[in-house]
C-alpha cells in the first residue's frame, strides 16, 4: 500500500506543508503549531472550510497581517499579527484550553524533536541541562486534539533519525501522535506499529535501513 516516489528529491519545506494540508479534512477545526506548521495555512483553500484555532483565544484565524492590517491585539500563538475571517470568535484562555483538552479540535499539527514508534512526542525541551524550560501549550495540544500530526525533517542535522523506538528527550505527551509527515516519508502510527505510507526521493528499503524503528508492512 506504500507509494514510493523514489524518482524525485525529498520534499521541500513548502512541499511538505502542502502534503500535510492535503490531509486536513474539509470543515475540520485545526490548530497549527508555532513555526513550520503555521505555513500549512498557505495551502488550505477557503473552500475547504477548515477553521483555524489559535490557543491564545480565537477560532477563525486568517492569514498573517501586514502593514495597516497589523493590530497588536490580534496575534497568533507565535505572537505574529494575524487577521480574522468571517465567522471568527474570541474566548479566554481557560475556555481555549478546555476546547483543546476536551478533544474538540479535529487536528493539531506540531513540530517535533523526536517521535517514538508508540506515538510518544518530544518537542518542548532539547534536554540540555542549562536550557530554560518553556512548554507553552504543547503538552495540552499533544494530548488534546483528536488527531496529532507531526511535521518535521526525518533526520536531524547530524543525520540521526527523529522517528525512534523510544524518545530519549523529555516527553511532551504519551502515545499521542497518529501521523508523521517528513521530508522523505509519511508515517502512520497505530497500536500495531509504524507504517510508512509514502516515500519521497527514497525507497522503503533504503528508508528502513536508516531507521531503528521497524516499519510494519501492511
Amino acid at each position, binding site marked *: 500500500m506504500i507509494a514510493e516516489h523514489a524518482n524525485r528529491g525529498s520534499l521541500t519545506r513548502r512541499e511538505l506543508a502542502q502534503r500535510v494540508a492535503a490531509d486536513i479534512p474539509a470543515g475540520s477545526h485545526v490548530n497549527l503549531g508555532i513555526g513550520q506548521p503555521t505555513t500549512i495555512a498557505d495551502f488550505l483553500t477557503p473552500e475547504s472550510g477548515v477553521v483555524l484555532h489559535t490557543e491564545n483565544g480565537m477560532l477563525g484565524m486568517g492569514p498573517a497581517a501586514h502593514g495597516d492590517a497589523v493590530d497588536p491585539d490580534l496575534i497568533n500563538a507565535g505572537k505574529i499579527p494575524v487577521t480574522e475571517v468571517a465567522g471568527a470568535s*474570541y474566548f479566554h484562555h481557560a475556555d481555549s484550553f478546555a476546547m483543546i483538552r476536551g478533544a474538540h479540535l479535529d487536528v493539531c499539527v506540531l513540530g517535533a524533536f523526536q517521535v517514538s514508534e508508540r506515538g510518544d512526542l518530544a518537542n518542548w525541551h532539547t534536554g540540555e541541562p542549562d536550557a530554560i524550560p518553556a512548554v507553552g501549550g504543547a503538552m495540552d495540544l499533544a494530548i488534546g486534539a483528536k488527531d496529532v500530526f507531526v511535521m518535521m525533517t526525518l533526520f536531524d542535522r547530524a543525520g540521526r533519525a527523529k522517528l525512534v523506538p523510544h524518545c530519549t528527550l523529555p516527553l511532551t505527551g504519551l502515545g499521542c501522535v497518529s501521523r508523521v509527515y517528513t521530508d522523505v516519508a509519511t508515517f502512520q502510527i497505530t497500536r500495531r506499529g509504524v507504517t510508512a505510507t509514502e516515500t519521497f526521493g527514497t525507497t522503503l528499503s533504503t528508508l528502513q535501513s536508516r531507521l531503528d524503528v521497524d516499519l510494519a508492512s501492511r
Partner: protein
Amino acid sequence: MSRLVATPDEALAGVCDGDTVLIGGFGTAGQPIELIEALIRTGACDLTVVNNNAGNGDRGLAALLAQGQVRKVICSFPRQSDSYVFNDLYRTGKIELEVVPQGNLAERIRAAGAGIGAFYTPTGVGTPLANGKETRTIDGRDYLLEYPLHGDLALVKAHRADTMGNLVYRKTARNFGPVMATAAATTVVQVDHLVQAGGLDPEAVVTPGIFVDLVVVCHPLRVLSPEGAAG
C-alpha cells in the same frame, strides 16, 4: 463593588511585599503595562508573578523583573526571542521559575476563582512536569492532580468598562484576563474606555463587575509592537 480610581498609582496602593500577582497578557497583547509600571513604582518586592510569559524586551513585566522585585515567576513559556531580562536572572540564580503547561495554568487560575479544590488533568502525564504530582487513573486514562492558583492581586487590561465594573476585551488581548480577574483577592483593571452602566450589551459582557475591584482608565496612547517570538 467596583470603584473607579484616577491613576494606576492609586490603584496599586494596596500591594504588599510577598504578594502573588496575576498579570494578564500573552506576550504584550493584553499586558497591563501602565499597571505594571505603577507596581514597579510601589517598590513592592519578593513578589510571585503569574503570567503566560516572563517578560518581553525591556518594558512592562520585563522591567519589573529587572528591578529585582520578583522572587518567582510561574508561567508556561519564559523563553522567547526577547526574554533576555528573565534569561539573565534565571541563569544567575536570581529568580525562581515554575513552568506550567499553558492549559493547566489557565485551569488552575480558573479553579481558584471557581472555588474548586483541585482537579485531574490529562496534560503533562508521563512528562518531566509530572514529577512529584499525584496521578490517578480514571476510566482507563491517566491524570495529574493540579491545585488552584490564587492571587493576592490581579492586574488585567480590558478594552472597555462600564461604571459597574463590567468588562469587554479586544480580540486576542482577552487571553488570561477573564480568569485572572476571578482569582485574586483584589482585581485591578486598566481600560481604554469607560462607559456608563447600560453602555455595554449585557449579553456581551465577558467579565461581570462582581470580579472587579478597581478600574483605572489608561488611554491607549502607546502601542507596543508584538514581537515575533514563540509562546
